[in-house]
């Protein structure tokens, strides 16, 4: 990432999650969905546009193609074909989810990552069960990218509905690239540059009839590579890597589609070509490119989490799927349980056994975990709970983004049940916050919530490769014998020791959800209850002394202040690529 300082105000934009908005639970929520027109004016965050040097109206001034035969329209006012340097572009691919627009967009994002550019993506998940209209938006920048952008500089429309639903999100002067086999734009609207390409036909032509229109995404990628002067070799390498292990014919087909798109004489209809400015990176570290849920899963692994349990739910599922796939490599286990009640209990079993564990869900499942999380507070067991938030309440809007579960995270338990609540601010932060959550959970023997959301879960960003050799945490439990042991010492922070640990004085600890004495045995004494309640609370006070004051993005408007003992930590994207937590 560049050294550009954080720009205040940008945190308010569409796709970017902000802690502040979540605090208005009960109020009409902010609906940070790009399909909602954002308020005019100040909130717009896409500052650098496609034409940094030319006046903003330069694109708009170009005449639109005369008629429906747009592909053959001669580029009468052909300008210089030398690429213009740009610093930032928002490219929106609008089609159906089965067209592979996510795949194409992910290739662009990875290329940006490998090219030292900053990148942020945004996607929608169709509400229908499979397939259906969706978008994938990629913003690439030579400076720091803090939002995926509310408006696009460059819109690719595969269908008439894509055109209709998204043309209003194209900036004045922006370029509409459309499949002229499917889309008829309204050329009377003089705000945009129209570039029609018979994408469907040309893809079939290139790949042969059997492919139907599969491959359109890669054809478009070829087109975009030409228009934005992308590094074709790097991109081809990324494509082949993706299909590595698959049938060679798949790679070949993809290359053919790409080549066809790249070779298309787009210069005939679009007078400009662009090139992202190269600002050499100063950190000297390569970038890695992934989405928020991946970053979270790998962060947990780096933080020493080897066990977990969950139950599928959008948008949490991809975290658990990644962990189920990855953990066996590290000797661990992730269990898909019969429900959320079982999964949090399994995770507590793992943690009790000495391996700090993770469970997670979205709102409905987190609600089901409430009782057991209270046990973690009372029995003082470390545990990480991920809530990848979605639209609520109840089943709500399962595929839309919302941040309305903060109050529940803090106040959801019955009784005085302190817990730590962290919220991730960026994809990179998902990685580091997971490590931090693991550290806090262990050090304070406490449940720790990580809040993320649909948008962060699914969006791709590039960030400086973490220095794993410094970060990796050893998960091995310490089973060395103890002379004597109190699970709940009144005068110290509880440290969990796992079964298998010999206690030489022969007095073994019991962990309990009943109010208990220092050995874990039940008490009904109000005096002891006060002491133990204070003990559980005070460790979060200790934590509060240790953590830095949160950085604030944008205007901080908050209806509720967060009370101790619940520590609320709004993590921030690091501006120099290093973990803010070290």
């Amino acid at each position, binding site marked *: 990432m560049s050294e550009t300082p954080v720009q205040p105000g940008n945190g308010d934009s569409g796709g970017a999650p902000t802690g502040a908005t979540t605090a208005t639970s009960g109020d009409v929520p902010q609906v940070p969905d790009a399909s909602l027109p954002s308020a005019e004016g100040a909130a717009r965050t896409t500052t650098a546009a496609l034409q940094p040097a030319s006046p903003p109206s330069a694109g708009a001034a170009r005449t639109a193609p005369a008629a429906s035969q747009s592909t053959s329209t001669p580029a009468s006012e052909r300008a210089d074909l030398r690429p213009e340097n740009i610093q930032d572009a928002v490219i929106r691919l609008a089609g159906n989810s089965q067209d592979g627009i996510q795949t194409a967009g992910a290739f662009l994002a*990875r290329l940006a*990552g490998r090219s030292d550019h900053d990148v942020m993506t945004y996607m929608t998940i169709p509400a229908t069960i499979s397939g259906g209209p969706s978008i994938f938006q990629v913003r690439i920048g030579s400076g720091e990218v803090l939002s995926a952008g509310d408006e696009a500089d460059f819109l690719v429309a595969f269908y008439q509905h894509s055109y209709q639903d998204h043309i209003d999100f194209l900036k004045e002067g922006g370029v509409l690239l459309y499949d002229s086999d499917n889309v008829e734009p309204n050329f009377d609207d003089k705000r945009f540059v129209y570039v029609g390409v018979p994408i469907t036909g040309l893809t079939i032509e290139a790949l042969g009839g059997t492919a139907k229109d599969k491959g359109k995404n890669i054809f478009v990628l070829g087109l975009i590579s030409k228009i934005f002067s992308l590094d074709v070799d790097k991109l081809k390498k990324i494509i082949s*890597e993706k299909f590595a292990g698959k049938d060679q014919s798949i790679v070949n087909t993809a290359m053919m589609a790409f080549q066809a798109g790249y070779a298309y004489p787009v210069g005939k209809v679009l007078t400009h070509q662009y090139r992202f400015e190269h600002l050499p990176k100063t950190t000297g570290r390569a970038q*890695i*490119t*992934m989405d928020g849920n991946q970053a979270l899963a*790998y962060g947990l*692994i780096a933080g020493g989490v*080897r*066990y977990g349990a969950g139950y599928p739910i959008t948008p949490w599922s991809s975290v658990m799927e990644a962990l189920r796939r*990855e953990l*066996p*490599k*590290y*000797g*661990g*286990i992730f*269990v898909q*349980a*019969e*429900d959320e*009640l*079982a999964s949090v*209990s*399994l995770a*507590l*079993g*793992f*943690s*009790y*056994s000495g*391996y700090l*564990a993770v469970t997670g869900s979205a709102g409905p499942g987190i609600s089901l975990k409430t*009782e*057991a999380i209270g*046990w973690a507070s009372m*029995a003082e067991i470390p545990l990480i709970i991920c809530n990848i938030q979605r639209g609520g309440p109840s089943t709500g809007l399962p595929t839309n983004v919302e941040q309305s579960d903060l109050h529940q995270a803090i106040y959801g338990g019955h009784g005085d049940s302190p817990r730590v609540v962290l919220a991730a601010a960026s994809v990179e932060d998902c990685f580091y916050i997971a490590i931090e959550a693991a550290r806090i959970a262990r050090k304070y023997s406490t449940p720790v919530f990580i809040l993320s959301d649909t948008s962060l879960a699914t969006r791709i960003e590039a960030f400086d*490769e*973490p220095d*794993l*050799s410094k970060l*990796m945490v050893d998960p*091995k*439990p*310490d*089973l*060395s*014998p103890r002379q004597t042991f109190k699970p709940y010492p009144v005068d110290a922070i509880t440290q969990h020791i*796992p*079964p*298998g640990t010999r*206690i*030489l004085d*022969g*007095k*073994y600890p*019991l*962990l309990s*959800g009943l109010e208990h004495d220092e050995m874990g045995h*039940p008490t009904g004494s109000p005096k002891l209850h006060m002491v133990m309640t204070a003990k559980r609370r005070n460790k979060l006070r200790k934590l509060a002394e240790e953590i830095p004051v949160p950085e604030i993005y944008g205007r901080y408007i908050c209806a509720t202040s967060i009370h101790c003992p619940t520590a609320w930590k709004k993590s921030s994207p690091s501006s120099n690529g290093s973990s803010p937590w070290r």
Partner: protein
Amino acid sequence: MPETTTSAPPAPEREKLTKKAITADHPTWCPGCGDFAVLASFYKVLEKKQLDHEKIVTLAGIGCSSRFPYFVNGHGAHFIHGRAVPLASGISLARPDLHVFLFGGDGDGFSIGGNHLNHGARKNINMTYFIMDNFVYGLTKKQTSPTSPIGFKSKTDPTGAIDQPVNPMKQLISAGATFIARTHATQVKHMMEMIERAFDHQGFSVIECLSECVEFYPDVFDPADPRKGGSFDVIQEKKWDNTPEDELRHDVTDELAAYKLAQLPFPGVFGVFYQNDRPTKNALEKKWIESTREKTGNASDLEILQKTFDRMK
């Protein structure tokens, strides 16, 4: 599995595991409660087996019977109502070196915890689960339990229970538990035998123990209590001795035969209904881990994650 041992500093020699060493608080159960017998049998089995003290883990949900872990001096946890099977599952899966013992009541196991029981059973997670069945909610003072017979007068069925009760044996057999036995708190020798066999079994082992609640459902088990002049019919297991008598004996690996035994009316029969050696989830996950680790060339954690990140550049 990640290695569970760290290089431990030298510790003193072990002494023999005595009843005294594993006894903790004096039980808060009512005098005469059947659960005392279960505790006594458990102590005896532990003494007999001479397990490493620190590897004994007792776990429970909530209920009178679920107070069990407080009365055993060993690592343990007293969890929430009905969810102890998944808690125990986590411990069992992560720590094959431990002996996981789980205790609870009929309400904890068959009412609120019924689903976890079924899924623990089908996944065949290695543990020994003791259900102290008193046909009533003891701790909450006499409500109808899932095993209360029709007609039982409780605070929630003042004119007598009307819902057909759960048949624990049927539920366990159909769910796929791999060791299923039934015993009685007045039959300490038989109970000890069942505990030992359950403990020796690899897989999800459940013992239902009829255990009288003298406070809220006294004398319920009379017919099955020889002390009180009732009968206690023990299942005769096949000896595979090719005798004609053996034809009539029970084959514990025969699921249908077990189900048939489960159809007998109260008090039914006691002993092992079913046992089978299906692979445990513990073993299956371990196998997957081993083949996966092999594919990575048994690389270090750091190497594996670094490689993954390299692919994401």
